[in-house]
């Protein structure tokens, strides 16, 4: 149950794609990731757990012969855990650039749409104090709902995981 997305078809005019974001839902909040980072969207299927890793790393998945770690964003953001259901999706992202690329999946409650955003519309994330880390948020877009645009490269950097682990 997977629906690979062809970036070019979805993006249509590539020159605009810098401003296209795939939005998805986590609880009542909307998040967005750069559509160029998205490899494919899959339905949830059980993964192989990796022992002794932070709870937000659900495990690894066989993605056409590659071993891809899957991150639960609810757990990552410290949100309440829910049972995975029929709409639960795994968004597979290509992280990093050049030689340092790797593939990771994030679990979201549901995908909603492809959002076209003018660069001017992106507002900086407000400083929410020490309690909420806004390092992984590239910016925010106000529309009918507020969408938080994630910086996938920072969010899904394995080096950062180890930092979290060491602290924990």
């Amino acid at each position, binding site marked *: 149950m997977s629906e690979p997305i062809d970036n070019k078809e979805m993006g249509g005019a590539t020159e605009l794609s810098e401003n296209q974001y795939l939005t998805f839902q986590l609880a009542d909040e909307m998040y967005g990731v750069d559509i160029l980072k998205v490899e494919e969207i899959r339905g949830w299927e059980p993964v*192989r757990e*990796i*022992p002794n890793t932070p709870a937000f790393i659900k495990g*690894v998945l*066989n993605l056409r012969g590659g*071993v891809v770690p899957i991150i639960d964003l609810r757990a990552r953001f410290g949100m309440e855990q829910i049972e995975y259901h029929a709409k639960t999706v795994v968004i597979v992202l290509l992280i990093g650039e050049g030689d340092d690329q*790797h593939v990771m999946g994030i679990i979201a409650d549901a995908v909603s749409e492809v959002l076209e955003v003018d660069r001017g519309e992106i507002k900086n994330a407000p400083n929410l104090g020490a309690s909420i880390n806004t390092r992984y948020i590239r910016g925010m877009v106000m529309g009918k709902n507020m969408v938080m645009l994630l910086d996938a490269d920072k969010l899904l950097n394995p*080096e950062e995981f180890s930092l979290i682990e060491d602290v924990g």
Partner: protein
Amino acid sequence: MTIDMEQFHQVFFEESFEGLDVMETGLLNLSPGTADMEEINTIFRAAHSIKGGSGTFGFMDVSAFTHVMETLLDEMRDGRRQVEQRGVNVLLGSVDCLREMLAAIQSGDEVDSKSVSTHQKELEIELNGSRSEATGEAAEIVVPEPDKAEDSAVNLGWHIIFCPHVHLMKTGNDPVRMFRELEELGDLTVEADFRGLPEIQDLDPEECHLSWDIRLEGDIERHEIDEIFDWVEDDCDMSIISFADEAEKNRPAEEDLVAGEPIVEKVVPAQETAKAPTKQAVKAEPEVKRPENKPAAKPASASIRVDTAKIDSLINMVGELVITQSMLSSLGEDFDMTKLDLLQSGLSQLESHTRELQQSAMGIRMMPISFVFSRFPRLVHDLSSKMGKQIELKLSGENTEVDKTVIELISDPLVHLVRNSLDHGVEMPDERIAAGKPALGIVHLNAFHRGGNIVIEVTDDGNGLDGDKLFNKAVEKGVVEPDTQLTEKEKFDLIFAAGFSTAEVVSDVSGRGVGMDVVRKNIEALGGHVEIRSKLGKGSTFAIYLPLTLAILDGQSVAVGDETYIVPLASVIESFNLKPEMVSYVAGRGETFRLRDEYLPILRMDNLFGVHRTESGKGSDGLLVVVEGQGTRCGLLVDDLLGQQQVVIKSLETNYRKIEGISAATILGDGSVGLILDIPGLLRLANR
């Protein structure tokens, strides 16, 4: 028509590096005092192709430098120069220098001109020195200037045999004028050959019956001479030979003249003559045995040379697979139970073809170990002369094939082990004689397959390891407690401890106390291990055991709760049902069991990995898999053994990072991911 030369550069570099390796091997095989023609020819040819290639591609520094080497080699080849150790060493140095030059050009760096000129000077000194000894005249050596790409041969001078056709003067050319022009280029000696002259009554004054033997000395480029003869090229027979090539070429040419035959047939037209030496070299090639080892490729290059036979067999295999596939799909179109047999045989065919295909695909990554071994003759040669030891290096099993990754990663540890054998193993000649051994020490590098492993052994007939000395040293360094009881083997293993060195004097070869521990770490990172066998006074052997390939592993699947893990089969010793009475407790907590004469710790996989076991029970109801890693044994408590299979190793680090206790992942038969256990990592995990 312009051709983009750049596209050939890579090939040129590869071939040149190969050529350099050939030269190096050849030079090392040359023994002073004797002239092994085959060997010298091989070296000469390699140098010649590098010169030619670099000229063609416009790397004039390289071409000029190689030319000087070539001249020296040519003298050796003609027997005008004795093969002496000094000369060989200078040539070896030049090979290194040339390699650096080529590497610099390849990577687009600046060529270290200082080192180049140093080596060039050395070569010239060598060239000058013996030339004056040999001929008694102080010949002037000129540093060759970069030349036109076509032919950059520059030397001491040229020997020109000029035989104009009878009608030369009728075309308006005057030999005397040409000689005058030649004179402007350098010192000119002209000898006329009168033998072609007819009787006076038959002589037509407008005909030219003379031929000339011209010697032109000086730093003259070929094209300058060609320019002068340009106009008469079609009206004469001539040969232009540089002095360097002269010795062998001159004689036959003169004989032809003496025979007095019409020269037209015999004397080769100028252009061809100039190239003749090259041709000759090419012709000679098949007779000369090329060194067996294909020289090592640069480890940095990501490309790999594959035997065509391997590719052919791979293609065949794919063909078979396609046939099987089409057979199966036609079977599937109208399948009924009567065709079950056909289906089963088709499936088993598919299985065997897939396995073969896998094997030949793996085979592409396999390369002979000689890629690593080929660097050692030079290393041993250099180090033994530096240390004043007499050491012979023996190589065997060079054709043993190993995974490319293993080749790349094993060479540094191996270099370290060989250096160690040279430095600490083999004694000084007088010590050896005093011990009743021949002065010439032997270091033997051997590679072979044993089971699923490749074994590489470094053996020396030196002094061997002294277990007690090692132990005392280790105590002194605080590596072990003085009252530890160790077996002989364990004492030997002490040299792998960090911060340990037995050399009384720290030399620049080895003995800094770093290294051996790194050697072991590197080898273990490859999934291998090192064993030491040694006898005091007789010598020692360091045996490296490595897995055949790093891409596929024989695994034993085990179940822990709902999870499946793969234990590398190579590390499994045995497995049995664990009964409660077999378990004893240390300090009430640490669980151990007794396996024959030793107590081994039990690692509970469910605790270690935080997995819920489906079956409960303390110390019982489980299977114990006894495994060994890095020389220590332990028992892994699992729920069930699932079966053995070959698994393809998938790195976790590609997309994630290293996980303690897990060496890699794989894809299981049902498409899910399986995790491969890393035994040493598990032990570390358990010790936390």
